[in-house]
């Protein structure tokens, strides 16, 4: 059974979430936990009799721009949070992606969903992941107990950091009901330097030089010609593009792009995309737009940035993969056939470089059959099982979402 044909529970408050989980805990019947189900195609499918959604749990509960803090209920649409902070000239730091097109869900992501999946966009390479900016959460454990961790201040080391543990746990430990995020002032100007025609090795070398410069590069990606052609603002460069973004006060952006352009001269003469065009390019990189129309499976591989080109070579050779790199080479987006052979090739390439993989998109049967993320070594898997039990002793929350049998 999948989420489309089960009963949906959509409590309107945290007490309702707790009540639903308490009942599930008592009966021992698993629930599929989601927000707006925009990412239900990610990772493993869940077998559950009922779906518990946080989508009715919505609304901003606190916004203090001068304290760089916003709190909202988990079901609040990410776009609504983004719009609220944009209204005060601020932004969500990790630039979280919207995979509704990639995954074909057509549903709008919620704040809780993005946090539960710890999804970060291009800015991650310089400013940290979604989890780095989750200052507080409220959540209901698999026993129906309501807990909070962290709070509404930017610096807090009181007790174990359950915020980070729940961020990226895909609703398998507790159902997040409210999130407090750190936000930052939006820059006055954004600009992207574009180098053209570089091969993957040279492209990543240029990005490494940019990220290692004193000019606070906030995003760094390399798209081969085939993928650049699928992004309107990049297509007209007519080849592979290597992108480095600088965002800050306008005079700083002018100064730093000039300096960086000079520093990167050995890689060619960089052109520049300003504000709107820069934004469009990075939204495409963020949301995997170049791979949306690719049939079959899509993976994300996370490796040390200099190993990105080796991963792209390996998957090209294995199955003629389409790919591009974000995070200075540290995040390789890959599209290829939805086959176990292709999956094994991706996993092997990630392992070879000491990194990890995530199967982002694939038919349900494949997602149920393969390790969608790397299995943990035995000693760690034992700890995982005990931590899962510490939150959800009956295994009712999103069973099998991340690992088979957990």
């Amino acid at each position, binding site marked *: 059974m999948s989420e489309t044909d089960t009963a949906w529970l959509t409590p309107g408050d945290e007490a309702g979430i707790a009540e639903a989980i308490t009942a599930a805990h008592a009966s021992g019947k698993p629930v599929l936990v989601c927000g707006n189900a925009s990412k239900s195609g990610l990772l493993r499918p869940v077998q559950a009799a009922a779906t518990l959604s946080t989508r009715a749990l919505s609304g901003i509960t606190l916004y*203090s721009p*001068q*304290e760089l803090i916003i709190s909202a209920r988990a079901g609040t649409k990410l776009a609504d949070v983004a719009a609220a902070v944009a209204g005060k*000239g601020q932004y969500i730091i990790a630039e979280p992606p919207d995979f509704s097109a990639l995954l074909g869900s057509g549903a709008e992501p919620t704040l809780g969903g993005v946090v539960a999946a710890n999804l*970060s966009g291009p800015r991650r390479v310089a400013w940290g*992941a979604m989890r*780095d900016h989750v200052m507080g959460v409220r959540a209901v*454990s698999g026993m129906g107990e309501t*807990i*909070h*961790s962290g*709070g*509404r*201040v*930017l*610096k*807090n*080391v*009181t*007790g*174990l*950091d359950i915020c*980070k543990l729940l961020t*990226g*746990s895909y609703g398998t430990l507790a159902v997040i009901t409210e999130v407090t995020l750190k936000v*930052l*002032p*939006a820059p006055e100007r954004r600009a992207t330097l574009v180098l053209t025609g570089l091969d993957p090795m040279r492209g990543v070398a240029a990005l*490494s030089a940019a*990220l*290692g410069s*004193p000019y606070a590069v906030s995003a760094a990606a390399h798209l081969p010609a085939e993928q650049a052609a699928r992004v309107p603002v990049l297509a007209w460069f007519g080849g592979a593009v290597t992108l480095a973004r600088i965002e800050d*006060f306008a*005079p*700083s952006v002018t*100064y730093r792009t000039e300096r960086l352009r000079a520093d990167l001269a050995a890689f060619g003469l960089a052109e520049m995309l300003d504000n709107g065009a820069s934004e469009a390019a990075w939204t495409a990189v963020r949301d995997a737009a170049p791979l949306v129309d690719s049939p079959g499976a899509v993976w994300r591989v*996370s490796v*040390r*940035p*200099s190993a990105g080109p080796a991963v792209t070579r390996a998957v090209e050779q294995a199955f003629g993969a389409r790919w591009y790199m974000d*995070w200075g080479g*540290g*995040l390789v987006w890959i599209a290829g056939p939805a086959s176990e052979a292709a999956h094994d090739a991706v996993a092997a390439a990630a392992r070879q470089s*000491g990194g*990890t993989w995530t199967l982002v998109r694939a038919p349900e049967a494949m997602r149920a059959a393969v390790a969608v*993320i*790397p299995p*943990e070594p035995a*000693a*760690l898997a034992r*700890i*995982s*099982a*005990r*931590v899962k039990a*510490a*939150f959800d*002793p009956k*295994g009712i929350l999103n069973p099998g979402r*991340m690992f088979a049998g957990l």
Partner: protein
Amino acid sequence: MIAQPEPKKDVLARRDAIVAGLRALLPPDGVIAEPLRLKPYETDGLSAYRQVPLVVVLPETTEQVAAVMAFCHREGVRVVPRGAGTSLSGGALPMADAVVLGLMRMNRILDIDYADRCAVVQAGVTNIGITQAVQERGFFYAPDPSSQLACMIGGNVNMNSGGAHCLRYGVTANNLLGLRVVTVEGEVLDIGGAHMDAAGYDWLGLLTGSEGQLAVVTEVTVRILRGPEGARAMLAAFRSNEIAGACVDSIIASGIIPVALEFMDRPAIHACEAFAHAGYPLDAEAMLIIEVEGSPAEQDDLLGRIKDICNRYDPISLKVSQSAEESAAIWKGRKGAFGAVGRISPDYLCMDGTIPTSRLPEVLGRIGAMSAEYGLQVANIFHAGDGNLHPLIMFDANDPESFRKAEHFGADILRLCVEVGGCLTGEHGVGVEKRDLMGVQFTEIELDQQRRIKSAFDPGWLLNPSKVFPLKAPPALTQAA
């Protein structure tokens, strides 16, 4: 004084055998058991608490740490991990029946990778040691706790240490990529690595700041960052805490995130000026030190914008540094703050709550009232950008009544921090010091949830027990078949 549990009598009785067992696992000088040589390990940065440990071990490799952990697990012996012993919350306070596991001999930098902007270092490398190793190429390791000359990265990871530049660069957790840890059973685990996002549960995030409760950290992969072209500071002094607080709000609201934004109240200004002669204005009620980064022209632009904002708040004095020397002079007093307070009063408690920055004037007012009530002086230093408040409570350690009052005063301040929406500790950790206040911030259900996580990693509660969580029998962990 905060209560310590009764030592396990059977462990004390087996001391000789335990020492002999440990000697078999480590190099000859890696086990310290002589009473006189154990004495230096009896306390950490919270020196009011002292306890000579059962024995101290100083392993040199992860394998030796694993052997020690496996042995202690088998023998049912408690273990207290220790870095440089600079914890201000008693995080490394020994126990009479526990092995102190000192990581200070694991002090090698294993790899520096400029292309991927990371370094692999052993747990006993000092915080400043990382920056020193990479600064020739213009890189640095960002978190900079005040104890950075001495404190070690393993301790920084366990306490999720902060520093004065967190507003721009984040705390320790935001600057890590991977860990090598040893579990309580003695198994070696690699968490994360040189890559940015590890799939699966965020063990890196959970272990960071876990105060030695979950595993022993032996190696750390840190992010290293290219430093800015330069940095410059300015000083702004105001007629009241309210005005200085409003000025901070306006700076942030203008879209500027200074790399440092430090606030000092009147007693702190006076203490620092008397000590460091930094030229601080003695007629001010509150003072800000604001630092920005970039090229000289960028610094001019940002300092100009900040100066315009400060001028709207009728400052008593505004001093924009024109050089590295002038910046150093502005920082001189602030950096010497602990020494300065130490000059007024030989003993002080350094508290560490966090508050929503908008509540600062009210909180300082109430701390002032408490100071009068307890008859103890207090100076406040505040990381104004991130809300982390450091009241320094002065007392006389030779007078038990004075110490008792100082502890109560400190606890009252922390309760106040929680009451206004903040927390008990921003960067020093709970340790022993704040253990019994955890109930102020967390419900019993929440504490039990945290205790169950502890149990998942350390079922026998052998790792650094009797800290962080108020004393109570560990909750049972049940697991579905």
